[in-house]
């Protein structure tokens, strides 16, 4: 028999972890219709007929936050067959308050009493049978983290549905009023009757004046009898009903400070707290941007999308014979990329965390970062890693585990363990098949490098310059993203994020945001898209909208190349980067202050009543899953939008309006006849007040074109400028001739690409005599690599300087405009999705454009006036704007008292 089961409970009660454990890898993630709250569903492991719905964590079913509304509507309208109420055993009273509300809905409830191990560790004793007796519904003690009690829970879910439990009693006066209401209005459930008594606006909407008067009378009778108001009576008596049986159920040991409390004393200490917070932030950026993440990104950019893919592509569609080493690397990397997610899901499905899988990537990092390790040490490390991931592979290949076969005849509609999807699952046989198939695929794909198609130069240019370069540039960010997401997921799951909000609230409230706004802003430093997604944790709609509008003004990872370029151009490294970050943070602060005082965000008070969950060590599975979900979202963006966009920009710059192909798009005359030129030409006058065409008006369209390309992805600004302002030939070198430079590839040791996942591919290559005979060229790289990125920025900067496109102030204005104006299309899409309203999306994008234009205008006009000492009309207009802005900031809030 198929049934639908809802998993519900308080936030932080281990609900999602339990959901992951029950469903294995078999999940889908989406959004609830109409709101921004995440919707997660799945099917029970081994019981495909049982559908599980993970409801958002709530404290109550009152209709205030979007999470509460979603949960309430789901339970009242969709009527699941059963509710699994996950209850945090360490926090019984508040969790059972929600249980009481679930029972009133008349839907059968099973309680999964989570975190029993923590109760035992505290020295308390909790009698789950006594709790079951007191509540009248099944209570199953589990620990989602330690995976105890899960078989019992599954048995209860598969078995017959229990009868609905009797609801908790209210005081006699309330019960009497409820009886009267039920008699006259027939609300259906006890929950609906209580809602009517509470004067819940949703419940009373359909009533006529007569019925309302009747309800008012009932309510007043109760309020007078109990000398309190109705909300307080209802909430208080729910808690009282729970407190009545708590002593029978829970025996508390002598109170001593828990480890969590002692930790908290240090972490949110008045003096140490901020220091530790700064240290944590520094560590996150050190690991993700400073070291590990950047190693990975450098490897992807300089090795993978350089000689490896470049060499393969040259052999495939060009006629340059691909060096065997490039092909071997190519197939090894492809096998690694395809097999990694498949194996991670297989391990999750087997109930293993799979976090150790990340060690399989270590050889790639080590090869790139530690070429100077002593040969012996290198070998020992690599052998240890090899043995380790061979062991993981062995587990995946031998443990029988789940199967996707479905005895009820419904097909899951997708091949299991498909590397392109995160939701697949499969048994041992399927895993073996996928493993061999993916290995063969990687090997076969690399063989294409022998084809030497020597395609038309148009096509070669489209694929090489248009597509591979574009996608590669974006995928290069993936290692950084992955590391950042892993670290942030850890902070979120362990409970530190709530403390961050707690500590930062004072600062953010001063500018009209809540402490929770800090998290999106911090995430946005990595990428604006997850930053916008992270605004979901903010309950208040106004705060959430304001945060979405401001989040993308923080310089994200993709804006770093732009900042690096202008650092190189203006020659004052630290200053430009500092200005960029201060402009971003300053815009958030000033924007928030100004917007708060407008009618859009009138009525400003936001409650900050927030639980500070106990610290705990998070589970590897949920961190992996969260990080993988976010990475997948990023890759999808790279794969679709950026892919299409880089092809479009390439098309616009390589073709004229009459569809003539421009052979050498970099040549002066072809640049001037491309479509892109005309698009820029139309837009250029808009930017004249910003001084973009000041020095050479006939080239004013170039910055405009770069700005347009920045809408696709901000880092495109750099590559577009590189095309539009070609580097003076004398200095050129590293970028162009990847094909000619293959002899100097840093492709040496055979160790890294030979880990257990890629072993079949590597073995297959050994049949190729060319590979066996291949002698790796001596390593000559070293220092040069470090400076590659800077060198690229310097090259483009040299081109811009040679063209004389910008003065110092107009260059600064150009950079600020691009950093602050509307973000890339992907982020715009995210804004649309999170705002859930076309009007608000429009307002947000318009505000960002206007703000960026204004800032760039002020910087250019005032900067120019101060720099040159000439006060023109523009400078006076700018000064007037600055005064208006100042007034908008300091004026008293005219809507302060509007509700």
């Amino acid at each position, binding site marked *: 028999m198929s049934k639908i089961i809802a998993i519900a409970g308080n936030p932080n009660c281990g609900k999602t972890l339990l959901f992951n454990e029950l469903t294995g890898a078999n999940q889908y993630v989406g959004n609830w219709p109409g709101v921004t709250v995440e919707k997660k569903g799945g099917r029970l492991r081994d019981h495909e007929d049982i559908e599980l719905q993970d409801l958002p964590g709530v404290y109550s079913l009152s209709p205030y936050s979007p999470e509460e509304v979603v949960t309430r509507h789901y339970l009242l309208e969709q009527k699941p067959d059963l509710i699994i109420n996950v209850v945090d055993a*360490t*926090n019984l009273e508040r969790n059972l308050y929600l249980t009481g509300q679930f029972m009133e809905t008349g839907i059968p409830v099973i309680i999964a009493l989570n975190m029993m191990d923590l109760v035992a560790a505290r020295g308390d004793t909790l009698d789950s049978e006594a709790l079951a007796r007191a509540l009248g519904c099944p209570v199953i003690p589990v620990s989602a983290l330690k995976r105890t009690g899960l078989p019992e829970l599954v048995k209860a879910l598969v078995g017959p549905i229990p009868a609905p439990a009797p609801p908790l009693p209210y005081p006699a006066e309330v019960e009497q009023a409820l009886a009267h209401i039920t008699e006259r209005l027939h609300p259906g459930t006890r929950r609906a009757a209580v809602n009517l008594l509470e004067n819940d606006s949703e419940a009373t909407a359909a009533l006529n004046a007569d019925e309302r008067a009747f309800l008012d009378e009932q309510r007043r009778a109760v309020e007078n009898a109990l000398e309190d108001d109705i*909300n*307080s009576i209802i909430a208080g008596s729910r808690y009282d009903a729970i407190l009545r049986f708590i002593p029978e159920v829970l025996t508390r040991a002598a109170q001593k400070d828990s480890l969590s409390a002692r930790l908290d004393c240090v972490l949110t200490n008045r003096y140490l707290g901020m220091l530790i917070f700064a240290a944590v932030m520094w560590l996150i950026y050190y690991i993700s941007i400073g070291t590990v993440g950047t190693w990975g990104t450098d490897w992807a950019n300089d090795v993978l999308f350089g000689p490896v893919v470049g060499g393969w592509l040259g052999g495939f569609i060009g006629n340059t014979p691909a060096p065997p080493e490039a092909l071997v690397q190519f197939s090894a990397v492809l096998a690694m990329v395809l097999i990694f997610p498949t194996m991670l899901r297989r391990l999750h499905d087997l109930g293993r965390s799979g976090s150790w899988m990340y060690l399989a990537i270590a050889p790639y990092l080590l090869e790139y970062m530690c070429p100077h390790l002593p040969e012996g040490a290198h070998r020992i490390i690599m052998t240890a890693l090899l043995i380790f991931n061979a062991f993981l592979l062995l587990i995946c290949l031998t443990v029988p585990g789940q199967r996707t076969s479905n005895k009820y005849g419904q097909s899951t509609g997708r091949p299991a363990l498909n590397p392109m999807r995160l939701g697949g699952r499969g048994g041992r046989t399927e895993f073996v098949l996928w493993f061999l198939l993916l290995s063969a695929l990687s090997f076969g794909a690399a063989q294409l490098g022998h084809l030497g198609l020597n395609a038309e130069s148009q096509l070669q240019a489209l694929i090489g310059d248009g597509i591979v370069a574009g996608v590669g540039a974006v995928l290069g960010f993936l290692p950084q993203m992955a590391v950042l997401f892993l670290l942030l997921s850890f902070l979120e799951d362990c409970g530190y994020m709530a403390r961050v909000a*707690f500590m930062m609230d004072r600062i953010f*409230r001063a500018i009209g945001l809540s402490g929770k706004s800090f998290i999106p802003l911090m995430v946005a430093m990595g990428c604006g898209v997850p930053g916008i997604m992270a605004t979901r944790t903010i309950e208040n709609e106004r705060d959430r909208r304001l945060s979405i509008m401001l989040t993308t003004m923080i310089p994200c990872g993709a804006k770093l190349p732009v900042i690096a370029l202008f650092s190189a151009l203006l020659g004052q490294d630290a200053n430009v980067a500092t200005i960029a970050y201060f402009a971003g943070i300053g815009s958030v602060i000033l924007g928030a202050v100004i917007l708060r005082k407008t009618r859009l965000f009138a009525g400003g008070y936001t409650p900050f*009543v927030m639980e500070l969950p*106990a610290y705990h060590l998070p589970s590897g599975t949920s961190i992996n899953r969260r990080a993988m979900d976010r990475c997948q979202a990023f890759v999808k963006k790279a794969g679709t939008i950026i892919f299409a966009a880089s092809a479009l920009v390439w098309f616009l710059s390589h073709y004229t309006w009459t569809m003539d192909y421009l052979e050498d798009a970099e040549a002066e005359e072809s640049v001037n006849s491309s479509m892109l030129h005309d698009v820029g030409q139309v837009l250029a006058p808009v930017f004249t007040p910003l001084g973009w065409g000041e020095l050479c008006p006939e080239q004013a369209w170039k910055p405009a074109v770069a700005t347009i390309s920045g809408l696709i992805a901000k880092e495109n600004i750099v590559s577009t400028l590189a095309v539009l302002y070609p580097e003076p030939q004398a200095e050129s070198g590293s970028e162009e001739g990847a094909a000619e430079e293959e002899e100097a590839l840093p492709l040496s040791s055979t160790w890294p690409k030979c880990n257990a996942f890629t072993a079949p591919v590597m073995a297959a290559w050994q049949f190729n005599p060319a590979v066996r005979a291949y002698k790796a060229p001596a390593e000559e790289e070293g220092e040069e690599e470090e400076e590659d990125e800077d060198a690229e920025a310097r090259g483009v900067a040299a081109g811009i300087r040679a063209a004389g496109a910008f003065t110092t102030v107009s260059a600064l204005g150009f950079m600020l405009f691009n950093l602050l104006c509307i973000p890339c299309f992907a982020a715009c899409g995210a804004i649309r999705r999170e705002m859930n309203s076309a009007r608000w999306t429009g307002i947000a994008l318009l505000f960002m454009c206007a703000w960026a234009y204004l800032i760039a205008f002020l910087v250019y006009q005032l900067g120019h006036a101060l720099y040159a000492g000439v006060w023109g009309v523009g400078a006076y207009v700018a000064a007037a704007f600055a005064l208006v802005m100042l007034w908008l900031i300091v004026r008293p809030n005219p809507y302060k008292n509007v509700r």
Partner: protein
Amino acid sequence: MDKPDSSLKLNQIKVGRSATITRVLGSGSLRQRILDMGLTKGTTVTIRKMAPLGDPLEVTVRGYELSLRKAEAACICVR
């Protein structure tokens, strides 16, 4: 029912002290949230600490830690 109230408020309690709630003032979502979180009449609340910048407060109620701002604590009458 928002008549001026001269009784002691939760934000006036010193760090480390406990108090018992007598009444929750205010209205709408904030009040409902405070009640739902277990800050109901007769509940004992302990002030744990202040955030590094002096606001919000951290309190222990019904065995768990809750943060609320001073302005919100001012809606809660205690004795």
